[in-house]
């Protein structure tokens, strides 16, 4: 066909060349602009200098040239027999006329009838972040992200419009360049901790293997009318990630380099050596009084028992000084070095985008460094006029160290590095006189500095290759095949040296682990776009096959005669009885699907969309198939005659949608009766691995179904100077993937089942406003606010509801006893707490029946935020640009994560651990104004069926100033006429500058026990464009 065209035009004898220069609104050269001779297929693209040159037939010299460029208004200029046509292009402030990715295709924003939020990656400050979802926090209404760990590459909790599947999975489906990621997990092998004690490891964000700078846009499908095309995987919404494509035109090369300084934010305020000795003596004295029943705890005559011997003498206290600051030994100022280079360009036939990124984070916590290399090639090749071949290829390699943080299930022997730094006595130095690591008063705790000798490396590589084929069958009908191969593999090398003197494994231990996670996708679909009658019809029909396999193995060797060989020769581990081998392969996870979408837009005013998908899943033994339909409609009111000429209203669209989607994300093993190994016992000299009934299956297990109703209004005022959308929705999960509790006397505790129903209802508002735009100064604000409540509609009838839980209570409600400070004296003991001791928490007899029991339990709060807000501002003035961004969660409660440190026994016991300076507030016989609970065990807490009370429950609303970025674009004239550099910008960015909150714990967003320390990051960087 190409030959035909060439031949055709070869017959046109007389040619004429038109040249010209294209500039932007600021007068800068604009490369990449499409120039087309109207009514023909003759065209070209402007070069780096904004210049173009186009040969046209002589006969067309009175024709018209069409100039178009994404983000700019298309312009038409008559040639009028000139040979030179210059133009200044103006930005298209009608931002709504963008293209939105909707799954198996794109739609114009105008044609969208579901609830879709879009974020352009260019609007996000990309430095010093490992993954795209970190950047999305607060950027899209309804997308709720909570960072679980501040560790480099650490995980986030993500949900769209509320986590309403209490025991299923609540994270959205990610679709990267059209390829759904069936198992968005991490391949990183975990450590076997059965001997080790502490859990080493990182809560890994799987998206950290994708370079955020490669991302062009993120589209978030929020309501079921839009997500139904993803069927059984879409209950929690869909996040579509689109990476950058090459554009026809001259090659542009961009480089961004940055250097970030990270410093720990205010951290735990621990006792120094002098304070430690003072507080130990003070609280141990009270423990002595309590243990011996001496006043105020009892009536024992003090002379009848042995005298109290303080652990530390006055002399020791006087000379103690500050002692060792253990936190300082394991934390440091960190840095991030990042280089990102990308090339983009192409011709009509071949388009290429390629990039390389290097990210090196020397983290603020020792042993948690993160180094990443990513490379990407996005290629698009036309083969003839009808076939287009594409390949999206990304490779990444992450090398990281695995200092762990967070809570541990176990005692002090399981303390990780941070916990041991908080617990180790400041009165001891790092090494003893023999050069060995010191011990603290509790011999089970590993010396914090010894942790630095532990080698724990993970190397993870990931390749995502996605070849695509598009065939234009007729002008209206296209066929597409998309294949996705996503392979992650990860190796873990761990060595615990003898020198560490770990309390469980003093003779040294090594582990090697290997994990892999592969996702395979094949999809084929037909799309049909045609003007039918007075409107446009768009159809998609397709099918897909998906498979995911996760495998791992690991081994442990114990008892090393030397630390010299580390994990490199684990065969020397002498104690074969402590050797461990294990392997794993995930259950079959296969899905087969068919899907369709029909969209009809009548007169550009009335739009209706039907979607549907049928999924078959290997997760469910009998009831494998589900069908998920959706329907939505929109009315573009501003296209009606009565508004068409309005100067006030530039855009107004009313949308409504209804749809059902599924949730299949529960372990496929849940459906089967299973006997599991791992129940060891020694008989004679053989350590048998016993096998026992571990699961009662449910053959009838099937999808959880979400039904969502959404009504939305898109609006634009004053030529979209102010634009936005408003959504109101109700999302109901039916046949919840949950567990029927089997009574605790059964072999198995639960059977997976579809029971109960939950609901979230909410509203969302997004606004974009151009506050000032007077040529040199432009100030825009984006605001999004969302609120929802998630609550139970129907509980599992088989799970006995304690009397204090209401049928329709919020999902994340906290129940417990109310408290009223502490008992400050023997006279202050309430009548219903007879026998309680001074210093005990004073519980409130809520129902006033004179007894503390389950009837006094009330709802104390809700850990889900009521409101999520995000506020961004961009100000550009001449060559300066300033961007600052706030986000916040409002209305939630959280426990003070310092509260564990306030247990007086932590320091008063003979195996004293260090703690926070606030322990000076602990009530004792000699500190009767103390407001924190004292030493005496509370005889009433054993009657509180929740085990929870509100003494440490706090309001945890917060607003965080996440980013401030200031950039300056160097004047273009600096580069003279050589134009080696097209433009250059320098910038500084500050992250985590401030958080505004009344929460007294560590950070209102990081309320887990022992969180990874937050860093204040300051970045200096440069953008260069060649």
């Amino acid at each position, binding site marked *: 066909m190409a030959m*035909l065209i060439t031949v055709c035009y070869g017959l046109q004898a007389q040619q004429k060349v038109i040249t010209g220069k294209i500039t932007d609104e600021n007068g800068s050269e604009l490369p990449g602009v499409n120039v087309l001779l109207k009514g023909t297929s003759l065209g070209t693209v402007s070069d780096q200098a904004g210049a173009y040159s186009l040969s046209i037939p002589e006969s067309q010299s009175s024709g018209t040239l069409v100039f178009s460029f994404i983000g700019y208004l298309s312009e038409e200029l008559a040639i009028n027999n000139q040979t030179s046509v210059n133009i200044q292009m103006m930005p298209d402030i009608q931002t709504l006329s963008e293209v939105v990715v909707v799954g198996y295709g794109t739609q114009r924003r105008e044609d969208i009838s579901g609830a879709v939020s879009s974020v352009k990656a260019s609007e996000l400050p990309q430095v010093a972040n490992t993954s795209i979802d970190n950047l999305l926090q607060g950027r899209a209404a309804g997308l709720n992200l909570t960072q679980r760990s501040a560790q480099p590459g650490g995980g986030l909790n993500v949900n769209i419009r509320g986590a309403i599947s209490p025991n299923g999975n609540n994270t959205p489906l990610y679709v990267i360049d059209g390829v759904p990621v069936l198992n968005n997990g991490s391949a990183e092998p975990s450590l076997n901790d059965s001997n080790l004690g502490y859990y080493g490891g990182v809560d890994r964000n799987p998206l950290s293997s994708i370079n955020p700078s490669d991302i062009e846009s993120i589209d978030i499908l929020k309501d079921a009318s839009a997500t139904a095309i993803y069927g059984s995987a879409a209950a929690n919404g869909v996040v579509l990630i689109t990476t950058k494509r090459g554009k026809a035109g001259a090659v542009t090369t961009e480089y961004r380099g940055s250097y970030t300084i990270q410093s720990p934010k205010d951290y735990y305020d621990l006792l120094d050596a002098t304070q430690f000795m003072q507080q130990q003596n003070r609280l141990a004295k009270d423990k002595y009084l309590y243990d011996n029943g001496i006043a105020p705890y*009892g009536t024992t005559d003090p002379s009848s028992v042995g005298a109290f011997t303080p652990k530390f003498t006055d002399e020791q206290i006087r000379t103690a000084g500050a002692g060792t600051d253990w936190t300082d030994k394991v934390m440091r100022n960190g840095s991030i070095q990042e280089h990102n280079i990308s090339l983009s360009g192409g011709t009509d036939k071949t388009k290429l985008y390629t990039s390389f990124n290097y990210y090196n984070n020397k983290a603020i916590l020792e042993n948690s460094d993160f180094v990443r290399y990513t490379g990407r090639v996005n290629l698009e090749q036309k083969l003839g006029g*009808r076939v287009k071949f594409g390949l999206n290829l990304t490779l990444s390699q992450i090398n990281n160290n695995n200092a762990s943080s967070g809570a541990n299930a*176990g*005692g002090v022997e399981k303390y990780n590095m941070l916990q041991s730094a908080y617990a180790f006595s400041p009165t001891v130095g790092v090494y003893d006189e023999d050069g060995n690591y010191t*011990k603290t*008063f*509790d*011999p*089970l705790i590993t010396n914090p500095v010894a942790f630095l000798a532990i080698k724990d490396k993970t190397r993870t590589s990931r390749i995502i290759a996605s070849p695509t084929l598009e065939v234009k*069958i*007729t002008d209206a009908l296209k*066929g597409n*095949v998309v294949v996705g191969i996503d392979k992650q593999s990860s190796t873990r090398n761990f060595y615990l040296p003898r020198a560490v003197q770990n309390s469980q494994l003093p003779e040294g231990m090594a582990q090697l682990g290997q994990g892999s996670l592969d996702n395979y996708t094949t999809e084929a679909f037909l799309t049909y776009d045609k003007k039918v009658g007075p409107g446009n019809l768009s159809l998609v029909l397709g*099918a897909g096959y998906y498979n995911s396999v996760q495998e791992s193995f690991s081994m442990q060797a114990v008892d090393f005669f030397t630390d010299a060989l580390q994990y490199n020769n684990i065969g020397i581990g002498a104690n074969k*009885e402590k050797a461990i081998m294990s392997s794993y*392969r995930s*259950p079959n996870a296969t899905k*087969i699907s068919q899907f369709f979408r029909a969209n009809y837009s009548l007169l550009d005013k009335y739009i209706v969309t039907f979607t549907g998908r049928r999924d078959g899943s*290997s997760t469910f033994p009998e009831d*494998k198939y589900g069908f998920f339909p959706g329907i939505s409609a929109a009315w573009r009111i501003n296209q009606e005659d009565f508004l068409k000429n309005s100067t006030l209203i530039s855009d107004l669209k009313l949308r409504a949608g209804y749809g059902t989607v599924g949730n299949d994300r529960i372990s*496929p*093993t849940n459906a*089967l009766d*299973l*006997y*599991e190994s791992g*129940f*060891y*016992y*020694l*008989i*004679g000299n053989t*350590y048998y*691995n*016993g*096998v*026992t*009934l*571990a699961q*009662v299956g449910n053959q009838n297990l099937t999808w959880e179904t979400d039904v969502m109703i959404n009504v939305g209004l898109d609006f634009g005022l004053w030529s979209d100077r102010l634009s936005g959308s408003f959504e109101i929705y109700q999302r109901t999960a039916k046949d919840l993937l949950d567990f*029927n509790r089997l009574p605790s*006397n*059964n*072999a*198995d*505790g*639960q059977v997976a089942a579809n029971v109960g129903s939950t609901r979230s209802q909410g509203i969302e508002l997004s606004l974009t406003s151009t506050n000032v735009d007077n040529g040199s100064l432009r100030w825009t604000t984006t605001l999004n606010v969302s609120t929802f409540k998630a609550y139970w509609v129907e509980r599992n009838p088989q799970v*006995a509801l304690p009397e204090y839980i209401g049928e329709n209570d919020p999902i994340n409600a906290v129940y417990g006893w109310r408290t009223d400070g502490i008992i400050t004296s023997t006279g202050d003991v309430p009548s219903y707490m007879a026998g309680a001791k001074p210093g005990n928490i004073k519980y409130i007899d809520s129902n006033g029946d004179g007894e503390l029991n*389950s009837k006094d339990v009330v709802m104390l709060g809700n850990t889900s935020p009521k409101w999520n807000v995000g506020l961004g501002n961009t100000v550009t003035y001449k060559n300066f640009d300033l961007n600052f961004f706030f986000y916040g969660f409002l209305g939630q409660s959280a426990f003070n994560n310092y509260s564990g440190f306030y247990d007086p026994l932590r320091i008063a*016991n003979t*195996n004293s651990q260090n703690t926070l300076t606030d322990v000076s507030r602990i009530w004792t016989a000699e500190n009767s104004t103390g407001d924190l609970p004292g030493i005496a*065990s*509370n*005889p*009433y807490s*054993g*009657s509180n*069926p*929740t085990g929870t009370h509100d003494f440490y429950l706090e309001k945890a609303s917060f607003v965080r100033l996440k980013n401030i970025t200031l950039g300056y674009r160097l004047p273009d004239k600096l580069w003279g006429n050589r134009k080696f550099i097209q433009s250059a910008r320098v910038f500084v960015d500050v992250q985590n500058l401030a958080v505004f909150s009344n929460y007294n714990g560590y950070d209102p967003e990081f309320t887990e026990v022992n969180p990874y320390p937050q860093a204040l990051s300051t970045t200096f960087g440069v953008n260069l464009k060649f």
Partner: protein
Amino acid sequence: MKNIHHYSKRSLMRTLIAMAAILVPLASCDDALETKVYTQVSPENFFKTEADFNVAVVALYSPFSTNWGMTDPGDGVWYNSLYNADNKTYLMRSILTTDEMVNGWDPNLENFTFGPSTWSGSNETVYYKIRYVARATDVINKISNATGGTEEVRKKYVAEAKVLRAWLMYILYDFFGPVNVKLDPATLNDTQITPRLSDAEYTAQMEKDLTEAIPDLEDMYNGNTSQWGRVSKGVARMVLLKLYMHTKQWAKAEAIGKEILEMGYALEPNYADIFTKRGNNELIYAVPASDATPNYYIQEVLPSDFRQAGSITRKVGGWSGYNMPWSFFDKFDANDERKSVIIDAYTADWGEVDRTDTWWKGPLPLKYTSFNGDGPGYAIDAVVFRLAEVYLSVAEAINEQRGPAEAYAYVNEVRSRSNVADFEDMTQDEFRDAILDERGRELFAEGVRRQDLIRHGKFISSAKARGKDAKDYQVLFPIPSAVIIEGKGIIEQNDGYTN
């Protein structure tokens, strides 16, 4: 342009065929959707051979281990093993609630401020072993109905499973009274809440399991190095003895005790050897330990500054867990050889420690006195049942029925080994008190003190004498509040506790 149209029709057909070739198979491959697992076995391929029966019964032994513990697959919660030396276990809670040891890590336990909500999840290590009773019921049923192996083999494994079920039931009974164990295999997956069994039903069931099992069991495994650790006739009779003592069925206790005495077990001549010689003839049951499943008791007892005491030396200290109060130590005669396993003075890394150090909480009830290396775990079996307890129980049972006259001979067998004077010339009441103390001296650190004090009605008064605010109802531990909530009123709390 015509050409183009012509071309596209052919192309259209070809493309549609190609698309169909891809789409059609995608729409119809049900085999690919089979629900399959790769790392677990299922009822279809399990309980077929003797090797299957063995690993199924091994799993019933696993909660008795000395190792730390494991995650229970029933609720996904990690629990300590019953005979692990952590302060939360069946073994240690049976010790730390009495006058024989102090620890301090769990104030609610030692101060008797515990209630139904004090221990939940991982901290309630004993109650949730009730799931193993149901697992035993499953194994008994599955092996009984299996066709693999010989009938003799099946009977042997069923008998072992029955002993383990009864023993677990005894442990639960000891702490909580009769609970709602699952004994009918047809109800194993029921969601129906069942009430607690009556005392009579519960004890009758234990008796039935044990007596049914005895004919199919080996007598004993002492000396059998490949099978040591399995339950035997001796173990079954011992659990019966414990049950009869517990329920004060003195005649039955005397009879079964005397049966055990006739079985061929013998007192080890030297007290300390009982705890260091694997499979010695005094042992009726010990939990086997190895480097793979170590015993941590020694490590828990030794102080962090410990270096040497007599022939016992270590290069590094232990975990400073357990001390015997001097008041208990003083119950021993000066020349009592049983004191050889208690350390009342030691060399610390900074100097000498002995009774004159008022800060020292008391001597170290080390018990296991011969070991190599610096720990933390040791391949030393944890002694659970042994012949001396049988002698003392028979003596007590006789005294309760007929006074001390016939009982002296039994108790003095035990006393004379340790070079202490014979019991003689006592009233029935004097003998009763004396045998309680004698059991304390003989069996300390073996987890029987709580049972003994309760049987003698002195558990609470002893706690009060130590200054604890103990209530009479605390002779039983509370049923965890989560179980009461789950029970919807059908499962009753032990008397006295407030939910």
